[in-house]
């Protein structure tokens, strides 16, 4: 059962590359679904049904991991590090070095919010800081999806370790920003619409 398990890229017959045609992936997903979905194998013997169920579950997990460019990167990092057992990414959040000072301020304001409530102008400051962090967050995602992904796809065998490290650092910053933005949302009472989607797993 364990050991030689096909990875999510292999399920689709793809190499471990991040540049992927989303429409083509969806077409393949539908095609493979027609082949392995349990609905079409109700009359099969129980053993075959168990195999089909397993194949279908793997296909769905693979599609989920690959269809979103960022989830794809997170999966690639886990795969390269031999940690393919967990769905949830476990990257240790890390503050972006250039923002350390500002983060200190924000944490202080958040502490204050917790112990008593914020003055109107403090709220305004925090809200402006949140907007900057969101911008920074979106930048980090664009970097992951764009140049960093391209760097991985172009990397030769000895450049891969460096590309992987770059991903991990960027993911750590992104995770950190996410946590702080969520904390500010909470302190200011409710997140703004449209940003809920970032909470997507």
């Amino acid at each position: 059962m364990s050991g030689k398990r096909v990875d999510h890229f292999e399920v689709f017959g793809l190499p471990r590359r991040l540049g992927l045609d989303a429409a083509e992936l969806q077409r393949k997903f539908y095609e493979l679904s027609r082949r392995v979905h349990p609905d079409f194998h109700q009359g099969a013997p129980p053993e075959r049904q168990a195999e089909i169920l397993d194949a279908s579950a793997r296909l769905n997990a693979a599609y989920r991991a690959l269809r979103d460019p960022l989830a794809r990167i997170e999966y690639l990092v886990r795969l390269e590090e031999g940690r393919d057992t967990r769905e949830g990414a476990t990257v240790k959040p890390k503050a972006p070095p250039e923002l350390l000072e500002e983060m200190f301020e924000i944490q202080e304001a958040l502490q204050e919010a917790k112990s008593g409530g914020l003055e109107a102008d403090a709220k305004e400051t925090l809200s402006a800081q949140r907007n900057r962090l969101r911008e920074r967050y979106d930048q980090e995602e664009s970097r992951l999806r764009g140049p960093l992904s391209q760097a991985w796809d172009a990397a030769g065998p000895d450049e891969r370790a460096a590309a992987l490290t770059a991903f991990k650092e960027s993911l750590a910053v992104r995770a950190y920003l996410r946590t702080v933005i969520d904390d500010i949302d909470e302190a200011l009472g409710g997140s703004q619409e449209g940003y809920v989607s970032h909470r997507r797993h």
Partner: protein
Amino acid sequence: MSRIVGIDLGTTNSLVAYVDDKTGLPRVIPDREGQPLLPSIVSFARDGVLVGAAAKRQLVRRPESTIYSVKRLMGRGFEDVKDELCYLPFKVLPCEGIVKIQVEGREVTPPEVSAIVLKSLKERAEAHFGEPIEKAVVTVPAYFNDSQRQATKDAGRIAGLDVVRIVNEPTAASLAYGLQRIKEGLIAVYDLGGGTFDISILRVKDGIFEVLATNGNTHLGGDDFDRAIVLALLDDIREKHGVYIGRDQEAMQELRLAAEAAKVRLSADDRTALTIPFDGFTYHREITRAELEGLIGRLVDSTLGPCRMALADAGLAPADIDEVVLVGGSTRVPLVRRRVQELFGKTPHSQLNPDEVVALGAAVQAQILAGGITDMLLLDVTPLSLGIETLGGIVSVLIPRNTTIPTSAREMFTTSVDGQHVVDMHVVQGERELAKDCRSLARFELSGIDPMPAGMPKIEVVFLIDANGILNVTATELRSQKAAAIEVKPTYGLSEADVERMVEDSFTYAEADVEARLLIETRNEADTVITHVERALAQGRRLIGDEEHAAILAALTALKDARGSTDRDRIREATTAMNHATEHLAELMMDAALKGALASRRADEIMEK
């Protein structure tokens, strides 16, 4: 492959449907009287069980033994439902994680009550096809959790049905629309039924129905609209007549049914009148659609949050949606339509009967499973994230919400103490960070681990959510490749042994046969008339002369005598005679009530000026 039917097991009504071999289109099977809907109501009596319309007629007369909206109790614990128990006339008790209902000196579980409804539909299908029906696709709200799905499957088993698939109601509806109307695009299915609300976002392409995201509330529906009206009427009655009838179960059922009927009329009319004869007075008032909307506005608005969340999870904006489909009887309410239209900016579809479309879709899915349709495929999702409790009570998510099912996740476990041979895990479902805020599904105990130093055993646990949205767990000790024994303790639900026993017991709750049922109904109708006449005499004696009074008393005695016999015709004749004898009195009382209502309105008008 044997025939598979599609069943919509609803909060208010249930239906059974199949795909017609000749036309290839799904059809609902009506009952003998041509009624497609079977009210999801079960009335327990000493001499049998009534189901559907027959049970509905018992709501007012025997409120404590007549179970309705049991779907709201399926797979739930006492804590989940205790706040709404004050609205239910029957007695609900906590019982080892689940709830039980006390009726006629017995205790029944929600799956057993649902099983009686399913059995009635099974028999309806068998009468239609002239052959035994053993397999069914049964629908559930998309936002149902694992326990609620399992409870539905258990209900099927108790009814003697192999539930070959649990399908989500909004997705089933999309299949029915897909077969007949919608071939491609992004679809939002807004499903507001009697007790539950779902929103599902789908992509339809090349015969594939891929659910992108789903959200909802398993405790919001038309029942809650009725409740809001009832609460307002209770206040109004107290003000006008100086009495609080909230503790009188029979009166409350009258009031609930009148509120529901008024709500239905207000979907077509701008205003409607309610006239309810109570013990000692007749309550009369008008209610406008605007007033209704004032009462239910907050409830309707509360469906919009889940819609936005589903859209966000699908990575879409409202404007991206090509078609909006309305499902469920409560989408007939104009305010609901207006809010949905405002949110998505387009006129929603409702060409297929919103009461029937889920059953029709279930029939389509049944036909797919039977191999009769091969070009359509439904790819559904799990509505809630699945996780395990880790140190500090934090949830570690293994399968995020909106993952296409079937799906699986693997997790490694080990021991923390030397020689430990048992490992516990607590599986939860929900979106909160702390396990205590999520829905506890089950505690699993992995046992038979060979004694080893702490951290040495490597136990791989596979969590698989099948196409029904139900969790299956298997475990293997990797060093020995031995399957680890797992003991499952479901937090909310019946044990295997419970279900076995209920399957055996189910004949106890068999629906009374036709003759017996008709007798019960005729007797009950006589009882209702007797109660009404006694009430009317107490209230309206002064309106009639002595001769008329004597004639009514004679008819009453004759009816009471007849009621004791088993001669149905005799009871019915005596009932008719009774009705005839009181016709004049009823007219006089109605006039008096209307005059009273007009007088009080005039008084209101004068007061306002």
